[in-house]
C-alpha cells in the first residue's frame, strides 16, 4: 500500500532555503530600528536590585568597577557600562574603573567619555580609569592587598599618588561596592575573591548567555543584583530614564524572538505533516541538502 503523500506546503517549508530565514531575521532586526514602536520595558527584580544597590549609596562613595569585555560582546555590555556609569555620576559616586581584558581599554574610554560628558564629570576628579592589567585572578586577589601594586599608574600614565581622588584608596576595604560587568569567568573570580573572601557587596552585569549561571549567587546574596544582557541593560536604562543603544534595540529584540518562535512552530508543524524524523518521512535535515 502506498504511503500517504505529505502535504505540499509542508514539504516546501521543510526544504526552505536557510537564506530566506536570514533575510526574515534581518528584516525583523532592521525594520524596528528604522520604525521604532517603543514597546514597554519593565525592570525585572534582578535589575531593580542592582539599580537600588547603586542608588542607595551616599554621594561621594567610591565604587570599584571592573569592566571586562571586548568588542565581541560590546553589544550587550557597552550600553550596560554607560548606563551604570551614568547612574554613578548622577548620584555623585566616584567610580574607579579597571579592566582585565587587553582589548577593552578603547571601549571603556569611549563609555567613560559618553557617560562623563552626559553627566558633566571630569577625569581624575570624579572618576579614574586604571587601564588594563594582565593576570585576571591574581590581579583580583592583589586588589585586596594593594591597588597601587597592581596599578601603579592610571591608563594615561599618571602615578596614582599624583591623583588626589585616589588618596587613601588602596584595597577592597575602601570600596563599599564592587561592580563587575563581565562576559567571562572573571565574574566567577570576583564572586570568589571580592564578594566571598573579602565580603564586599557586589553587583554583577553579565552577557545573556551567562546570566542564568549566576542566579544562585543572587539567592545566596553573594551578589546583590544581576544585569543580564542587552535586555538587562535596557531595563537599567529604563530605571535611569535614559535612552541608550540597549533600549533602542529592544523592539528589534522582541520582533526577532517572535520571528524565531513562529519559525520553530512552523518547522515543527511541517515536520509533523511530513512524517517526522522516522525512516520514510521526508522531514528533517538528514536529506543533506546543505541548506
Amino acid at each position: 500500500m502506498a504511503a500517504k503523500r505529505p502535504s505540499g506546503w509542508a514539504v516546501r517549508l521543510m526544504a526552505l532555503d536557510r537564506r530566506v530565514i536570514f533575510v526574515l531575521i534581518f528584516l525583523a532586526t532592521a525594520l524596528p530600528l528604522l520604525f521604532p514602536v517603543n514597546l514597554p520595558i519593565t525592570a525585572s527584580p534582578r535589575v531593580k536590585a542592582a539599580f537600588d544597590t547603586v542608588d542607595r549609596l551616599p554621594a561621594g562613595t567610591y565604587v570599584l568597577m571592573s569592566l571586562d569585555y571586548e568588542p565581541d560582546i560590546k553589544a550587550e555590555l557597552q550600553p550596560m557600562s554607560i548606563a551604570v556609569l551614568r547612574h554613578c555620576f548622577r548620584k555623585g559616586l566616584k567610580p574607579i574603573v579597571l579592566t582585565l581584558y587587553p582589548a577593552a581599554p578603547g571601549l571603556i574610554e569611549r563609555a567613560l567619555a559618553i557617560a562623563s560628558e552626559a553627566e558633566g564629570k571630569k577625569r581624575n576628579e570624579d572618576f579614574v580609569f586604571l587601564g588594563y592589567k594582565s593576570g585576571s585572578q591574581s590581579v583580583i586577589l592583589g586588589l585586596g592587598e594593594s591597588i597601587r601594586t597592581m596599578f601603579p599608574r592610571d591608563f594615561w600614565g599618571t602615578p596614582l599618588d599624583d591623583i588626589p581622588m585616589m588618596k587613601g584608596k588602596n584595597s577592597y576595604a575602601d570600596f563599599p561596592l564592587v561592580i563587575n560587568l563581565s562576559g567571562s569567568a572573571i565574574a566567577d573570580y570576583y564572586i570568589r575573591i571580592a564578594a566571598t573572601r573579602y565580603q564586599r557587596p557586589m553587583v554583577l552585569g553579565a552577557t545573556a548567555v551567562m546570566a542564568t549561571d549566576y542566579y544562585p549567587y543572587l539567592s545566596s546574596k553573594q551578589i546583590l543584583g544581576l544585569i543580564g544582557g542587552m535586555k538587562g541593560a535596557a531595563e537599567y536604562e529604563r530605571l535611569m530614564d535614559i535612552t541608550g543603544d540597549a533600549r533602542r534595540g529592544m523592539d528589534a529584540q522582541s520582533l526577532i524572538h517572535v520571528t524565531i518562535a513562529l519559525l520553530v512552530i512552523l518547522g515543527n508543524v511541517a515536520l509533523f505533516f511530513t512524517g517526522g524524523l522516522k525512516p520514510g518521512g521526508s522531514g528533517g535535515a538528514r536529506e543533506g541538502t546543505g541548506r
Partner: protein
Amino acid sequence: MSGIETWIAAALTLCVFSFLYRDNPLYRFAEHLFVGSAAGYLLAVQFQNVIKPNVIQKIAGGDFLPFIPLAMGILVLGRLWDKATPASRWAIAFYVGIYSGIAIPAYLQAQIFAQLADAVKPFEPGWHAINSVLVLLGFLSVVTYFFFSAPHRGANGAVARVGIWFLMVAFGASFGYTVMARASLLIDRVLFLLRDALHVLPAA
C-alpha cells in the same frame, strides 16, 4: 569613529555577513585579517603590559629578582624541544601549584560552602516559601540524578526524573538567553550599519 574608520568597519562587517550567502574570498579575507590583527595586538599589549614593566624596566633599574620568573617563563618554552621538556615541567608544576593554592580554597568557599548554606537555609515567610520549596526540590532531585552509584530505579529513579525536568527547565532558560544574546550582537551590527555608516538613523 571617524569617517574612514567607520567605512572600514562597515566593509568588514559586510564581508563577514557575506558568509551567510556562502563561503567566499571576502569572508576569508575578513577572517584572516581579524585573526592576524588580534594576535598582533595581543602580543604588543602583553609586551607593553607584562614584559616591559615587570622585566625590562626592573632589570634596567638594578632589580635582578625578575630573572627568576623570566627563567621559569623561558623553561616553559622547553616543551618545544624534546630534550628540554622535563625542565619545562618544573615551571608548569610551579604554576599549577600556585594556581591551585589560589583557586581551590576560593572555589570551595564561594561555590560549594556558600551555595550549600543557601540551599539548606530556613524557608522564607509567605509566598516566598514556594521559591524555597522549589529550590530545595530542584537541589535534591538534581543531586539525585547525578548520583550514579545507585541505579535510577524505583523511588530513586522517580526523584532522578524530577531532576531531569529541573535540568530541562534550566537548559531551556539558558538557551532562551543564548538566542537573546546572539540577537543582541546582530542588532548592534545592524544599528552600526544604519546609524554610523549609512546615517539613516539619527546619531546617538
